[in-house]
């Protein structure tokens, strides 16, 4: 039991080293490192499954030296999504990064990124949460600027470092205040002890802003579009798909120490909910008129984070399970849909060499695997049935209304109105890609590129009609959040 919680992190960190060395040592090192990454990710995915099978809904704590790990539903959820998405990206990158140099570096960094995510999932105290959070961040800095021969990537990476670093520093400050007030950083004991109110408010505020930078909450979001657009497509998928969500979940984990639901010390959940409305609205508005496909997806991620944040905020504020379920489900769905969309966009970029939607007119028709799946993802992101995105939005809305009275109706209307608003950029993008453009070529894209995309599309539809397996896991996660006050 003491080894098992460590396993995923160990696998991933070790795997990173392995991928790097193998890649450098062997001829055709790029392929070798990629293959290693795939295997490692597969193994860590399985390890999370095993962990999940044995843990149940009561968190298990496994002190190992100075590091406390905690295995609970939320952690399992994050771990599975992270490694699952990572696995798909690794497969995808096998073909996508084929012509790159330094693939060993790439794969190692990818594994380190996911190791950080796994750590966030399993962290048992605030300090370790922070450490793994930073691990993830640093890996992502390098990955964003991976194409360092391009000015765009370097500029994006630099901005990202500075902003994200600022956020991390603020978060650390907040953690510091918590330690100041409570004397411990252990999540288990923090949930039972109470901080002095002023200190708690201050700490909470800093945590919200600090982690909020990474989670792209408005108005701390401005770094995101540059970073997500400039990164290689697989990394964009990771960034939008799980990295910013990890930041969000880290925030939620940290805030949960102040109590959840009716027993919370103050209304941080409502703060999150209002920030969420701001985020989704601003995100949707800025996304309009975008002509770069990846920037468009990046902006839309901001809005989608708003939806997730609304669900989580309301759930935490009023103790409403379905809101949390909706928010978490949307994390999963968004990972599939946005991740898949980035991967599909990558296929188009790879084939036609451009990200400009005007130049890509009709490209979706020439490569149906990319075009039709992109259409499906866009519809899912806009909340159209029978996709999973529709269900998660419905759940969030259902939870949001339970905030009560006019406020509840306001949240629901804001959510749905934003969904509709998002059509303003999804639809033109869709129709542009699927239009006729007169050319008759049918380029072939490698199955390693299209395979993951199609798999995601199938999952999106499947979860739209049969969400039960995922919901069981997510309900577990929600329960741990809600019952998080008591161990």
């Amino acid at each position, binding site marked *: 039991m003491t080894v098992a919680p460590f396993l995923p992190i160990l696998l991933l960190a070790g795997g990173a080293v392995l991928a790097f060395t193998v890649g450098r040592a062997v001829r055709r090192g790029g392929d070798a490192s990629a293959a290693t990454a795939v295997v490692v990710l597969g193994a860590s995915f399985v390890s999370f499954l095993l962990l999940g099978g044995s843990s149940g809904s009561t968190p298990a704590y496994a002190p190992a030296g100075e590091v406390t790990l905690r295995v609970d539903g939320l952690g399992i959820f994050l771990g599975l999504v992270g490694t699952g998405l990572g696995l798909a990206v690794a497969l995808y990158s096998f073909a996508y990064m084929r012509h790159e140099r330094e693939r060993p570096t790439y794969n190692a960094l990818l594994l380190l990124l996911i190791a950080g995510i796994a750590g966030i999932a399993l962290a048992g105290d605030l300090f370790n949460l922070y450490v793994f959070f930073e691990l993830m961040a640093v890996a992502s800095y390098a990955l964003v600027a991976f194409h360092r021969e391009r000015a765009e990537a370097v500029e994006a990476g*630099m*901005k990202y470092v*500075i*902003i994200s670093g*600022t*956020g991390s520093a*603020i978060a650390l400050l907040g953690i510091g205040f918590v330690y100041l007030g409570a004397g411990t950083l252990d999540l288990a004991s923090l949930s039972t002890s109470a901080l002095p*109110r*002023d200190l708690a*408010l*201050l700490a*909470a*505020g*800093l945590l*919200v*802003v600090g982690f*909020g*930078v990474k989670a792209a*909450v408005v*108005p*701390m*979001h*401005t*770094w995101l*579009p*540059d970073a997500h657009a400039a990164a290689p497509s697989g990394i964009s998928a990771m960034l939008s798909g799980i990295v910013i969500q990890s930041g969000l979940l880290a925030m939620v984990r940290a805030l949960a120490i102040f109590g959840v639901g009716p027993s919370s010390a*103050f*209304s941080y959940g409502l*703060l999150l909910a209002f*920030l969420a409305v701001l985020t989704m609205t*601003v995100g949707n*508005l*800025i*996304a*309009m*008129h975008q002509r770069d496909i990846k920037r468009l997806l990046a902006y839309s991620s901001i809005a989608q984070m708003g939806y997730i944040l609304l669900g989580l905020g309301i759930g935490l504020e009023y103790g409403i399970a379905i809101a949390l379920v909706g928010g978490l489900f949307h994390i999963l769905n968004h990972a599939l849909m946005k991740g898949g969309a980035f991967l599909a966009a990558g296929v188009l970029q790879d084939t036609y060499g451009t990200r400009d939607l005007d130049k890509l007119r009709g490209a979706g028709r020439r490569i149906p695997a990319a075009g039709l799946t992109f259409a499906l993802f866009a519809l899912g992101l806009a909340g159209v049935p029978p996709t999973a995105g529709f269900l998660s939005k419905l759940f969030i809305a259902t939870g949001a209304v339970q905030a009560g009275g006019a406020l509840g109706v306001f949240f629901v209307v804001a959510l749905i109105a934003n969904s509709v*608003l998002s059509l*303003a*950029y999804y639809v033109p993008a869709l129709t542009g890609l699927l239009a006729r453009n007169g050319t008759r070529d049918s380029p072939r894209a490698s199955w390693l590129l299209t395979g993951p995309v199609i798999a995601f599309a199938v999952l999106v539809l499947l979860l739209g009609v049969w969400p039960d397996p995922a919901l069981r896991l997510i309900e577990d996660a929600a329960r741990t959040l809600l019952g998080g006050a008591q161990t």
Partner: protein
Amino acid sequence: MIAAPPFLIFLVGAPVVLLARGRARRVGLVVLAGLALALTLLLPEGVGWTVRFMEYDLVLLRADRLSLFTGYVFALITFLGVLYAAAFARPWLHLYALLYAGTSLGAVFAGDVVTLLIFWEGMAITSTLLVFEHGGAAVGAGYRYLLFHVLGGALLAGGLALQVVESGSLLLGPVSGSWPSFLTALGAGVNVGFIPLHTWLPDTYPRPHIAASVFLSVYTTKAGVYLLARTSPAVEAIALMGGAMAVYGVVFALAQNDMRKLLSYHIVSQVGYMVAGVGLGTVEGINGGMAHVFNHILYKALLFMAVGAVIHATGQHVMDRLGGLGRRMPVTAVTFWIAALSISGVPGFNGYVSKGMVIAASEDLLPLRVLLEIASFGTFLSFLKLGYFVFLREGDTPGRDPPWPMQSAQVGTAALCVAIGAYPALLFRILPAASAYDPWTPTHLLEAGLVLAGAAATFVTVGRVVLAPHEPRVRDADVAYEAAGRALVRFTQGLARGFAVVYDGFVAAVSQAGRSARRLQTGDLNWNVAGVALGILLVLLWLLWEGAA
């Protein structure tokens, strides 16, 4: 004894007869009409022929004194009209005319509201077809005609539906309640020609084939009067409207040059008498109104037949191009004058009897009585004008009497006018209610005599000059309708533009919001950091608020 609804004969028989050709067809038509007449005359009183439709039991045949009375005259004039029309080889005209007659009889004998409505609309459609059949200028008029009649039918349907709700019964009878009465009266009023819903009548009747005009002059308006009698919304306003119609029609008739248009305005006027009688609601009033229905049908059809014969012979339909036909078309001239004297209410002819009944019934309502007397004056004046300028004055328009079917129809109708005029008891026997009216009292004779003498004197002295035929300079209410139509179109176009502006405006606003929002993305690192700072500020504000709470 076959107690079958007469409409069946026409609806079934007409298409069949029309399959024949030439002479056989013409004979068949007359036989068919004769058969229908015989059947109608032999109908016993009673109710029958129920049919299941929607969730109701419809009554297709309800024969009581009122419906039988109206049915008799409808069937009678159909026979005479068919005889007249048999002179022409126009199969579609015959078909539509017979269907029109059939649906009219169906409406008259309808026992329930739904049956009535179905036949009512059927009348509108078949009469429109009759108008359209002629083509040319009649087509535009037919369009306007149908618009009016759909309006009337829809109003009627609404009123009767409300009546069904109020009374719980589907039977056609007196209507009560303000909305049902209002809508029903208005719906019948379109058919009858309430001012200003009358414009279709002078617009349409002069235009189609001359035989078609004969049929048109009969059914629609009188079915409306029948309906008013049946539903008896005895409202004084209706009676007064009748008076207004009587005068209005005469005034416009006097100004007309086109012969059939003159006659059409007289329909409005004469129907005004009927409406006045029925609107009074008293037994004498209804009796008088219905009696006038009977007589009017006879002499108005005869007038259209005679004028039709003139048009047929000369090719002219305006008075200022005619003259001297009295000698060249003697039969037509004689039948014309019989009809003219009947319509003017000269004693010894049928019109005198029924007009007298209506005027007598209006004793208690002085304004109405005055209006009706004025109309009588104008009527005689108008027909003196028509008769003089077409038949009596010197002229060299060529012409001769029409073919024998037309002549016999005219003569037969004229004979009936004279017979009833001389022996009113013939009419009194079939009236809906027993009548105590005596047309030969000195008072009645004197009244009529004064009015007629006055009109004659006016014509002989100044009338011949003042009333010389020329293109009329007066415009009827049509002007208002046209203007309203144009205004409606302009309004609609403005409304459409308004909607387009709203939608486009909304889209533009959202799009602009997006564009403005983009300015938040400067790509400037300092800006990004400022964003973080703003975030801290917002959160601190919140926390302060929280802390205070």
